[in-house]
Protein backbone atom coordinates (compact mmCIF):
# COMPACT_ATOMS: atom_id res chain seq x y z
CA UNK A 1 0.00 0.00 0.00
CA UNK A 2 2.79 2.43 1.06
CA UNK A 3 4.89 1.72 -1.98
CA UNK A 4 1.88 2.40 -4.22
CA UNK A 5 1.27 5.78 -2.55
CA UNK A 6 4.95 6.81 -2.90
CA UNK A 7 5.14 5.77 -6.54
CA UNK A 8 5.27 8.77 -8.90
CA UNK A 9 2.06 9.55 -10.80
CA UNK A 10 2.26 8.76 -14.53
CA UNK A 11 1.56 12.41 -15.44
CA UNK A 12 4.61 13.52 -13.43
CA UNK A 13 6.68 10.75 -15.01
CA UNK A 14 5.47 11.99 -18.36
CA UNK A 15 6.87 15.49 -17.68
CA UNK A 16 10.16 14.14 -16.37
CA UNK A 17 10.50 12.18 -19.61
CA UNK A 18 9.15 14.77 -22.03
CA UNK A 19 11.68 17.50 -21.24
CA UNK A 20 14.81 15.45 -22.05
CA UNK A 21 12.90 13.81 -24.89
CA UNK A 22 12.33 17.26 -26.45
CA UNK A 23 16.08 17.89 -26.49
CA UNK A 24 16.73 14.47 -28.05
CA UNK A 25 13.95 14.82 -30.62
CA UNK A 26 15.00 18.36 -31.63
CA UNK A 27 18.64 17.26 -31.96
CA UNK A 28 17.76 14.26 -34.14
CA UNK A 29 15.46 16.32 -36.38
CA UNK A 30 18.04 19.10 -36.79
CA UNK A 31 20.70 16.49 -37.62
CA UNK A 32 18.40 14.79 -40.13
CA UNK A 33 17.63 18.14 -41.77
CA UNK A 34 21.42 18.76 -41.90
CA UNK A 35 20.91 22.20 -40.32
CA UNK A 36 24.10 21.73 -38.31
CA UNK A 37 26.16 20.28 -41.14
CA UNK A 38 26.15 17.54 -43.78
CA UNK A 39 26.00 13.84 -42.75
CA UNK A 40 27.63 10.99 -44.57
CA UNK A 41 25.52 8.00 -45.62
CA UNK A 42 26.21 5.90 -42.51
CA UNK A 43 25.63 8.82 -40.13
CA UNK A 44 22.35 9.67 -41.89
CA UNK A 45 21.20 6.04 -41.57
CA UNK A 46 22.03 5.92 -37.85
CA UNK A 47 20.33 9.26 -37.14
CA UNK A 48 17.28 8.07 -39.07
CA UNK A 49 17.10 4.92 -36.96
CA UNK A 50 17.53 6.90 -33.74
CA UNK A 51 14.76 9.28 -34.85
CA UNK A 52 12.40 6.34 -35.51
CA UNK A 53 13.13 4.94 -32.01
CA UNK A 54 12.59 8.37 -30.52
CA UNK A 55 9.23 8.73 -32.34
CA UNK A 56 8.17 5.33 -30.92
CA UNK A 57 9.14 6.46 -27.45
CA UNK A 58 7.14 9.70 -27.80
CA UNK A 59 4.11 7.70 -28.94
CA UNK A 60 4.45 5.21 -26.07
CA UNK A 61 4.58 8.00 -23.48
CA UNK A 62 1.51 9.69 -25.00
CA UNK A 63 -0.37 6.38 -24.84
CA UNK A 64 0.73 5.85 -21.24
CA UNK A 65 -0.53 9.30 -20.21
CA UNK A 66 -3.90 8.93 -21.98
CA UNK A 67 -4.48 5.49 -20.38
CA UNK A 68 -3.72 7.01 -16.98
CA UNK A 69 -6.20 9.88 -17.59
CA UNK A 70 -8.92 7.37 -18.59
CA UNK A 71 -8.10 5.01 -15.73
Amino acid at each position, binding site marked *: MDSEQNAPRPISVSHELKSPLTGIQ*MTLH*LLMEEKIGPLNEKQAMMVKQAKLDCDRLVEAISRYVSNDKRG
Partner: protein
Amino acid sequence: MDILIIDDDPGISSTTRLAVEAEDHYAETADSTEAARRRIREEKWDLIFLDVRLGDENGLEFLKEILEKTPEQLVVIFPAFSSVEIAIKATQAGAFDYLEKPFTPDRVRGILLKAKKALSTNRELSTLKNTVTELKTQVDRSGPPTRFESEDPTMIATLDTIFRAAASPASILILGESGTGKSVIARTIHENSKLADKPFVTVSCPSLSKELLESELFGHVRGAFTGAVKDQWGKVHAADGGTLFLDEIGELPLSIQPKLLRLLQEREYERLGENKPRKANVRIIAATNRDLKASVAAGEFREDLFYRINVISVEMPPLRARTKDLMGFAHDYLDHFSKQVGREVKVFSAKALDRIRTHQWPGNLRELRNSIERATILARGKEIEDTDLPSGGDAAQTGTPAGYVVPGSDVTLEELEREHIKLIVDRVKNLQDAAILLGIDKATLYRKRKKFDLN
Protein backbone atom coordinates in the same frame (compact mmCIF):
# COMPACT_ATOMS: atom_id res chain seq x y z
CA MET B 1 13.53 38.60 -35.49
CA ASP B 2 15.31 38.82 -32.13
CA ILE B 3 14.26 35.90 -29.95
CA LEU B 4 14.86 35.09 -26.28
CA ILE B 5 14.50 31.46 -25.11
CA ILE B 6 13.90 31.08 -21.38
CA ASP B 7 14.31 27.48 -20.22
CA ASP B 8 16.47 25.87 -17.55
CA ASP B 9 16.83 22.68 -19.57
CA PRO B 10 20.00 23.12 -21.69
CA GLY B 11 18.87 20.40 -24.12
CA ILE B 12 15.69 22.29 -24.98
CA SER B 13 17.15 25.82 -24.99
CA SER B 14 20.20 24.96 -27.11
CA THR B 15 18.28 22.96 -29.73
CA THR B 16 15.49 25.56 -29.93
CA ARG B 17 18.17 28.20 -30.40
CA LEU B 18 19.74 26.18 -33.23
CA ALA B 19 16.35 25.77 -34.93
CA VAL B 20 15.71 29.52 -34.64
CA GLU B 21 19.17 30.50 -35.89
CA ALA B 22 18.84 28.10 -38.83
CA GLU B 23 15.93 30.30 -39.97
CA ASP B 24 18.19 33.38 -39.93
CA HIS B 25 16.90 34.89 -36.72
CA TYR B 26 18.94 36.11 -33.79
CA ALA B 27 18.52 34.07 -30.59
CA GLU B 28 19.75 34.16 -27.00
CA THR B 29 19.01 31.85 -24.09
CA ALA B 30 18.35 32.55 -20.39
CA ASP B 31 18.22 29.76 -17.80
CA SER B 32 16.41 31.65 -15.00
CA THR B 33 13.82 34.37 -14.54
CA GLU B 34 16.54 36.56 -13.06
CA ALA B 35 18.74 36.32 -16.17
CA ALA B 36 15.67 36.70 -18.40
CA ARG B 37 14.43 39.76 -16.48
CA ARG B 38 17.79 41.47 -17.05
CA ARG B 39 17.88 40.73 -20.80
CA ILE B 40 14.26 41.85 -21.21
CA ARG B 41 15.09 45.10 -19.43
CA GLU B 42 18.15 45.64 -21.62
CA GLU B 43 16.76 44.65 -25.02
CA LYS B 44 13.62 44.66 -27.10
CA TRP B 45 12.68 41.09 -28.13
CA ASP B 46 10.38 40.29 -31.02
CA LEU B 47 9.49 36.91 -29.54
CA ILE B 48 10.07 35.11 -26.24
CA PHE B 49 9.87 31.34 -25.65
CA LEU B 50 9.14 30.68 -21.99
CA ASP B 51 9.08 27.40 -20.06
CA VAL B 52 6.22 27.28 -17.59
CA ARG B 53 8.28 25.26 -15.10
CA LEU B 54 11.56 27.05 -14.46
CA GLY B 55 13.10 25.16 -11.53
CA ASP B 56 11.05 26.24 -8.52
CA GLU B 57 9.66 29.28 -10.30
CA ASN B 58 6.29 29.60 -11.96
CA GLY B 59 6.60 30.59 -15.63
CA LEU B 60 2.97 31.72 -15.77
CA GLU B 61 3.64 34.32 -13.06
CA PHE B 62 6.67 35.49 -15.02
CA LEU B 63 4.52 35.68 -18.18
CA LYS B 64 2.13 38.04 -16.33
CA GLU B 65 5.08 40.13 -15.15
CA ILE B 66 6.41 40.48 -18.72
CA LEU B 67 3.02 41.40 -20.17
CA GLU B 68 2.30 43.94 -17.44
CA LYS B 69 5.37 45.90 -18.53
CA THR B 70 5.09 45.29 -22.29
CA PRO B 71 1.56 44.19 -23.22
CA GLU B 72 2.42 43.88 -26.93
CA GLN B 73 5.26 41.37 -26.28
CA LEU B 74 4.81 38.04 -28.10
CA VAL B 75 5.42 35.14 -25.67
CA VAL B 76 5.18 31.46 -26.57
CA ILE B 77 5.05 29.11 -23.59
CA PHE B 78 6.32 25.57 -23.20
CA PRO B 79 3.65 24.01 -20.93
CA ALA B 80 4.99 21.66 -18.26
CA PHE B 81 2.29 19.11 -19.01
CA SER B 82 0.17 18.47 -22.00
CA SER B 83 -2.83 20.18 -20.54
CA VAL B 84 -5.64 22.15 -22.13
CA GLU B 85 -6.13 23.88 -18.79
CA ILE B 86 -2.60 25.35 -18.80
CA ALA B 87 -2.90 26.37 -22.44
CA ILE B 88 -6.16 28.21 -21.64
CA LYS B 89 -4.62 29.86 -18.57
CA ALA B 90 -1.61 30.99 -20.58
CA THR B 91 -3.76 32.34 -23.40
CA GLN B 92 -5.95 34.18 -20.91
CA ALA B 93 -2.81 35.67 -19.39
CA GLY B 94 -1.91 36.97 -22.87
CA ALA B 95 0.47 34.30 -24.26
CA PHE B 96 0.77 34.46 -28.04
CA ASP B 97 0.85 30.65 -28.43
CA TYR B 98 2.09 27.48 -26.76
CA LEU B 99 4.43 24.72 -27.85
CA GLU B 100 3.69 21.32 -26.38
CA LYS B 101 6.65 19.09 -25.47
CA PRO B 102 8.16 17.15 -27.10
CA PHE B 103 8.18 19.47 -30.12
CA THR B 104 10.09 19.39 -33.41
CA PRO B 105 11.92 22.05 -35.46
CA ASP B 106 8.88 22.09 -37.79
CA ARG B 107 6.63 23.24 -34.94
CA VAL B 108 9.18 25.92 -33.99
CA ARG B 109 9.25 27.12 -37.62
CA GLY B 110 5.45 27.28 -37.65
CA ILE B 111 5.50 29.50 -34.56
CA LEU B 112 8.18 31.73 -36.11
CA LEU B 113 6.09 32.27 -39.24
CA LYS B 114 3.01 33.07 -37.18
CA ALA B 115 4.99 35.52 -35.02
CA LYS B 116 6.49 37.20 -38.06
CA LYS B 117 3.04 37.74 -39.50
CA ALA B 118 1.71 39.11 -36.20
CA LEU B 119 4.69 41.47 -35.90
CA SER B 120 4.17 42.67 -39.44
CA THR B 121 0.49 43.37 -38.67
CA ASN B 122 1.51 45.21 -35.49
CA ARG B 123 4.04 47.20 -37.45
CA GLU B 124 1.47 48.07 -40.13
CA LEU B 125 -0.85 49.29 -37.39
CA SER B 126 1.91 51.35 -35.86
CA THR B 127 2.82 52.77 -39.31
CA LEU B 128 -0.85 53.67 -39.83
CA LYS B 129 -0.93 55.38 -36.43
CA ASN B 130 2.24 57.33 -37.33
CA THR B 131 0.78 58.27 -40.70
CA VAL B 132 -2.39 59.56 -39.06
CA THR B 133 -0.34 61.58 -36.55
CA GLU B 134 1.83 62.94 -39.34
CA LEU B 135 -1.17 63.81 -41.50
CA LYS B 136 -2.76 65.57 -38.54
CA THR B 137 0.43 67.58 -38.06
CA GLN B 138 0.51 68.37 -41.78
CA VAL B 139 -3.10 69.51 -41.72
CA ASP B 140 -2.38 71.65 -38.67
CA ARG B 141 0.63 73.23 -40.31
CA SER B 142 -0.90 72.78 -43.77
CA GLY B 143 1.79 73.65 -46.27
CA PRO B 144 1.02 74.58 -49.83
CA PRO B 145 0.17 71.77 -52.28
CA THR B 146 2.98 70.05 -54.11
CA ARG B 147 2.98 70.77 -57.83
CA PHE B 148 4.12 67.87 -59.96
CA GLU B 149 3.26 69.32 -63.36
CA SER B 150 6.15 71.01 -65.07
CA GLU B 151 6.81 72.69 -68.37
CA ASP B 152 10.53 72.68 -67.81
CA PRO B 153 12.25 69.99 -69.93
CA THR B 154 14.82 69.09 -67.22
CA MET B 155 12.11 68.77 -64.58
CA ILE B 156 9.86 66.77 -66.92
CA ALA B 157 12.74 64.30 -67.42
CA THR B 158 13.41 64.24 -63.66
CA LEU B 159 9.77 63.50 -62.83
CA ASP B 160 9.61 60.83 -65.50
CA THR B 161 12.67 59.07 -64.04
CA ILE B 162 11.31 59.41 -60.50
CA PHE B 163 7.94 57.84 -61.24
CA ARG B 164 9.48 55.01 -63.29
CA ALA B 165 12.15 54.26 -60.67
CA ALA B 166 9.79 54.50 -57.68
CA ALA B 167 8.35 51.01 -58.18
CA SER B 168 11.77 49.34 -58.19
CA PRO B 169 13.68 48.67 -54.95
CA ALA B 170 16.79 50.42 -56.33
CA SER B 171 18.59 53.11 -54.36
CA ILE B 172 17.96 56.61 -55.64
CA LEU B 173 20.22 59.63 -55.32
CA ILE B 174 18.53 63.04 -55.56
CA LEU B 175 20.84 65.89 -56.44
CA GLY B 176 20.10 69.57 -56.28
CA GLU B 177 20.58 72.81 -54.43
CA SER B 178 18.99 73.44 -51.04
CA GLY B 179 15.31 74.22 -51.25
CA THR B 180 14.66 72.54 -54.59
CA GLY B 181 12.25 70.04 -53.01
CA LYS B 182 14.49 66.97 -52.59
CA SER B 183 12.71 65.83 -49.40
CA VAL B 184 9.29 66.16 -51.04
CA ILE B 185 10.50 64.11 -53.99
CA ALA B 186 11.96 61.44 -51.66
CA ARG B 187 8.58 61.05 -49.96
CA THR B 188 6.82 60.99 -53.33
CA ILE B 189 9.09 58.15 -54.46
CA HIS B 190 8.23 56.23 -51.29
CA GLU B 191 4.49 56.87 -51.71
CA ASN B 192 4.64 55.59 -55.28
CA SER B 193 6.63 52.48 -54.40
CA LYS B 194 5.55 49.04 -53.24
CA LEU B 195 6.65 50.10 -49.75
CA ALA B 196 4.07 52.90 -49.52
CA ASP B 197 2.35 51.29 -46.51
CA LYS B 198 5.69 50.69 -44.76
CA PRO B 199 7.66 53.23 -42.72
CA PHE B 200 9.36 56.27 -44.30
CA VAL B 201 12.13 57.44 -41.98
CA THR B 202 14.27 60.54 -42.48
CA VAL B 203 17.78 61.06 -41.15
CA SER B 204 19.29 64.49 -41.54
CA CYS B 205 23.02 63.77 -41.80
CA PRO B 206 24.45 67.22 -40.97
CA SER B 207 22.23 67.91 -37.97
CA LEU B 208 24.12 65.79 -35.42
CA SER B 209 27.65 65.07 -34.23
CA LYS B 210 29.39 61.97 -35.61
CA GLU B 211 28.68 59.86 -32.53
CA LEU B 212 25.05 60.94 -32.21
CA LEU B 213 24.44 60.46 -35.92
CA GLU B 214 25.82 56.91 -35.76
CA SER B 215 23.59 56.22 -32.77
CA GLU B 216 20.57 57.82 -34.45
CA LEU B 217 21.13 55.62 -37.50
CA PHE B 218 22.07 52.29 -35.97
CA GLY B 219 21.05 52.62 -32.30
CA HIS B 220 23.23 51.93 -29.27
CA VAL B 221 23.47 49.83 -26.14
CA ARG B 222 23.70 51.13 -22.60
CA GLY B 223 27.17 52.51 -21.83
CA ALA B 224 28.20 52.77 -25.51
CA PHE B 225 29.09 56.41 -24.88
CA THR B 226 28.64 59.04 -22.17
CA GLY B 227 24.93 59.63 -21.77
CA ALA B 228 23.86 56.28 -23.24
CA VAL B 229 21.84 55.29 -20.19
CA LYS B 230 19.72 52.66 -21.87
CA ASP B 231 19.56 50.54 -25.00
CA GLN B 232 18.16 52.34 -28.00
CA TRP B 233 17.11 51.21 -31.45
CA GLY B 234 18.10 53.41 -34.37
CA LYS B 235 16.31 54.70 -37.43
CA VAL B 236 17.54 51.76 -39.52
CA HIS B 237 15.49 49.50 -37.25
CA ALA B 238 12.52 51.88 -37.45
CA ALA B 239 12.74 51.87 -41.25
CA ASP B 240 13.07 48.07 -41.55
CA GLY B 241 10.90 46.92 -44.45
CA GLY B 242 10.41 50.49 -45.65
CA THR B 243 12.42 53.48 -46.87
CA LEU B 244 15.31 55.24 -45.17
CA PHE B 245 15.80 58.77 -46.49
CA LEU B 246 19.31 60.11 -45.88
CA ASP B 247 19.12 63.85 -46.32
CA GLU B 248 22.38 65.64 -47.18
CA ILE B 249 24.32 62.37 -47.43
CA GLY B 250 27.35 64.33 -48.63
CA GLU B 251 27.83 65.35 -44.98
CA LEU B 252 27.95 61.74 -43.74
CA PRO B 253 31.25 61.32 -41.83
CA LEU B 254 33.80 58.99 -43.46
CA SER B 255 33.88 56.75 -40.38
CA ILE B 256 30.14 55.94 -40.70
CA GLN B 257 30.24 55.35 -44.46
CA PRO B 258 31.55 51.71 -44.29
CA LYS B 259 28.67 50.84 -41.92
CA LEU B 260 26.12 52.25 -44.32
CA LEU B 261 27.79 50.36 -47.16
CA ARG B 262 27.53 47.13 -45.15
CA LEU B 263 23.83 47.80 -44.57
CA LEU B 264 23.32 48.30 -48.29
CA GLN B 265 25.36 45.30 -49.40
CA GLU B 266 24.73 42.72 -46.69
CA ARG B 267 21.54 44.14 -45.10
CA GLU B 268 23.38 43.94 -41.79
CA TYR B 269 24.42 46.44 -39.14
CA GLU B 270 25.49 46.60 -35.52
CA ARG B 271 24.33 48.91 -32.79
CA LEU B 272 26.92 51.21 -31.24
CA GLY B 273 28.79 49.38 -28.45
CA GLU B 274 27.55 45.95 -29.50
CA ASN B 275 29.03 43.14 -31.58
CA LYS B 276 25.84 41.41 -32.65
CA PRO B 277 24.95 41.67 -36.32
CA ARG B 278 21.33 42.74 -36.87
CA LYS B 279 19.32 42.34 -40.04
CA ALA B 280 17.44 45.19 -41.70
CA ASN B 281 15.97 45.47 -45.16
CA VAL B 282 15.64 49.11 -46.13
CA ARG B 283 15.39 50.96 -49.41
CA ILE B 284 17.76 53.90 -49.43
CA ILE B 285 16.91 57.26 -50.93
CA ALA B 286 19.67 59.81 -50.48
CA ALA B 287 19.85 63.50 -51.27
CA THR B 288 22.68 65.98 -51.44
CA ASN B 289 23.49 69.46 -52.66
CA ARG B 290 27.14 68.50 -52.94
CA ASP B 291 29.02 67.32 -55.99
CA LEU B 292 29.57 63.79 -54.70
CA LYS B 293 31.98 62.90 -57.49
CA ALA B 294 34.18 65.78 -56.38
CA SER B 295 33.85 64.57 -52.77
CA VAL B 296 34.99 61.10 -53.92
CA ALA B 297 37.97 62.66 -55.72
CA ALA B 298 38.81 64.67 -52.59
CA GLY B 299 38.71 61.50 -50.47
CA GLU B 300 35.74 62.74 -48.44
CA PHE B 301 33.27 60.20 -49.74
CA ARG B 302 33.81 56.49 -50.40
CA GLU B 303 33.73 55.58 -54.05
CA ASP B 304 32.08 52.17 -53.41
CA LEU B 305 29.31 53.82 -51.37
CA PHE B 306 28.83 56.46 -54.06
CA TYR B 307 28.25 53.79 -56.72
CA ARG B 308 25.99 51.83 -54.38
CA ILE B 309 23.63 54.76 -53.73
CA ASN B 310 23.94 56.15 -57.23
CA VAL B 311 22.04 53.32 -58.96
CA ILE B 312 19.54 55.88 -60.21
CA SER B 313 20.20 59.57 -59.83
CA VAL B 314 17.94 62.49 -60.55
CA GLU B 315 18.76 66.17 -60.60
CA MET B 316 16.36 68.73 -59.22
CA PRO B 317 16.94 71.87 -61.30
CA PRO B 318 17.21 75.19 -59.42
CA LEU B 319 14.11 77.36 -59.50
CA ARG B 320 15.87 80.06 -61.57
CA ALA B 321 16.26 77.48 -64.35
CA ARG B 322 12.55 76.54 -64.17
CA THR B 323 11.36 79.81 -65.61
CA LYS B 324 8.28 78.18 -67.11
CA ASP B 325 7.19 76.77 -63.75
CA LEU B 326 8.06 79.75 -61.60
CA MET B 327 4.80 81.70 -61.93
CA GLY B 328 2.74 78.55 -61.37
CA PHE B 329 4.47 78.01 -58.03
CA ALA B 330 4.04 81.69 -57.10
CA HIS B 331 0.29 81.58 -57.76
CA ASP B 332 -0.11 78.25 -55.91
CA TYR B 333 1.63 79.68 -52.85
CA LEU B 334 -0.34 82.92 -52.95
CA ASP B 335 -3.62 81.02 -53.23
CA HIS B 336 -2.65 78.77 -50.32
CA PHE B 337 -1.34 81.43 -47.93
CA SER B 338 -4.15 83.91 -48.59
CA LYS B 339 -6.60 81.19 -47.50
CA GLN B 340 -4.43 80.18 -44.55
CA VAL B 341 -4.08 83.69 -43.14
CA GLY B 342 -7.67 84.57 -44.12
CA ARG B 343 -6.83 87.55 -46.32
CA GLU B 344 -8.29 88.59 -49.65
CA VAL B 345 -4.87 88.90 -51.30
CA LYS B 346 -5.38 87.17 -54.62
CA VAL B 347 -3.07 88.83 -57.17
CA PHE B 348 0.41 90.14 -57.74
CA SER B 349 0.90 93.65 -59.10
CA ALA B 350 2.67 93.96 -62.46
CA LYS B 351 5.83 95.11 -60.69
CA ALA B 352 5.62 92.20 -58.23
CA LEU B 353 5.33 89.75 -61.12
CA ASP B 354 8.37 91.34 -62.65
CA ARG B 355 10.28 91.02 -59.37
CA ILE B 356 9.39 87.33 -59.14
CA ARG B 357 10.53 86.79 -62.73
CA THR B 358 13.86 88.61 -62.36
CA HIS B 359 14.84 87.53 -58.85
CA GLN B 360 17.30 84.65 -58.93
CA TRP B 361 15.74 82.69 -56.04
CA PRO B 362 19.02 81.25 -54.68
CA GLY B 363 17.04 79.60 -51.87
CA ASN B 364 14.82 78.03 -54.53
CA LEU B 365 11.26 76.86 -53.72
CA ARG B 366 11.82 77.29 -49.99
CA GLU B 367 12.74 80.95 -50.49
CA LEU B 368 9.80 81.55 -52.86
CA ARG B 369 7.39 79.91 -50.42
CA ASN B 370 8.65 81.92 -47.43
CA SER B 371 8.71 85.17 -49.42
CA ILE B 372 5.13 84.76 -50.57
CA GLU B 373 3.93 83.73 -47.12
CA ARG B 374 5.57 86.85 -45.69
CA ALA B 375 4.22 89.05 -48.51
CA THR B 376 0.68 87.72 -48.02
CA ILE B 377 0.79 88.62 -44.33
CA LEU B 378 2.37 92.05 -44.87
CA ALA B 379 0.46 93.14 -48.01
CA ARG B 380 -1.33 96.48 -47.42
CA GLY B 381 -4.08 95.96 -49.98
CA LYS B 382 -5.51 93.19 -52.09
CA GLU B 383 -2.40 92.99 -54.26
CA ILE B 384 1.11 91.86 -53.48
CA GLU B 385 3.43 94.73 -54.37
CA ASP B 386 7.04 94.39 -55.48
CA THR B 387 8.10 96.03 -52.21
CA ASP B 388 6.53 93.12 -50.29
CA LEU B 389 8.92 90.72 -52.05
CA PRO B 390 12.67 90.26 -51.60
CA SER B 391 15.00 92.36 -53.70
CA GLY B 392 18.09 90.90 -55.35
CA GLY B 393 20.16 92.00 -52.35
CA ASP B 394 18.35 89.60 -50.03
CA ALA B 395 19.91 86.69 -51.85
CA ALA B 396 23.23 87.32 -50.16
CA GLN B 397 21.66 86.14 -46.89
CA THR B 398 21.27 82.64 -48.25
CA GLY B 399 24.96 82.26 -49.02
CA THR B 400 24.42 81.69 -52.74
CA PRO B 401 25.84 84.27 -55.13
CA ALA B 402 23.20 86.80 -56.13
CA GLY B 403 22.42 87.13 -59.81
CA TYR B 404 23.91 83.73 -60.52
CA VAL B 405 22.98 82.85 -64.07
CA VAL B 406 22.40 79.26 -65.05
CA PRO B 407 23.38 78.04 -68.51
CA GLY B 408 20.29 76.63 -70.18
CA SER B 409 17.88 78.98 -68.40
CA ASP B 410 16.26 81.98 -70.10
CA VAL B 411 19.35 84.17 -70.27
CA THR B 412 21.11 85.87 -73.14
CA LEU B 413 24.66 85.04 -74.17
CA GLU B 414 25.66 88.50 -73.02
CA GLU B 415 24.23 87.94 -69.53
CA LEU B 416 25.99 84.58 -69.38
CA GLU B 417 29.29 86.11 -70.48
CA ARG B 418 29.01 88.96 -67.97
CA GLU B 419 28.27 86.54 -65.11
CA HIS B 420 31.13 84.22 -66.02
CA ILE B 421 33.68 87.03 -66.24
CA LYS B 422 32.44 88.48 -62.94
CA LEU B 423 32.77 85.15 -61.10
CA ILE B 424 36.26 84.46 -62.48
CA VAL B 425 37.54 87.96 -61.67
CA ASP B 426 36.10 87.71 -58.15
CA ARG B 427 37.73 84.33 -57.60
CA VAL B 428 41.32 84.73 -58.89
CA LYS B 429 43.99 86.96 -57.44
CA ASN B 430 44.76 89.19 -60.43
CA LEU B 431 43.50 90.15 -63.87
CA GLN B 432 46.37 88.38 -65.64
CA ASP B 433 45.31 85.03 -64.15
CA ALA B 434 41.65 85.80 -64.89
CA ALA B 435 42.48 86.51 -68.55
CA ILE B 436 44.42 83.23 -68.83
CA LEU B 437 41.49 81.30 -67.33
CA LEU B 438 39.03 83.00 -69.66
CA GLY B 439 41.23 82.31 -72.69
CA ILE B 440 41.44 85.98 -73.70
CA ASP B 441 44.18 88.58 -73.50
CA LYS B 442 44.34 91.20 -70.76
CA ALA B 443 43.26 94.04 -73.09
CA THR B 444 40.10 92.16 -74.14
CA LEU B 445 39.31 91.47 -70.51
CA TYR B 446 39.72 95.18 -69.75
CA ARG B 447 37.29 96.10 -72.57
CA LYS B 448 34.73 93.54 -71.47
CA ARG B 449 34.86 94.63 -67.84
CA LYS B 450 34.25 98.19 -69.00
CA LYS B 451 31.39 97.10 -71.26
CA PHE B 452 29.71 95.06 -68.52
CA ASP B 453 30.42 97.67 -65.87
CA LEU B 454 32.45 95.26 -63.77
CA ASN B 455 35.04 97.69 -62.50
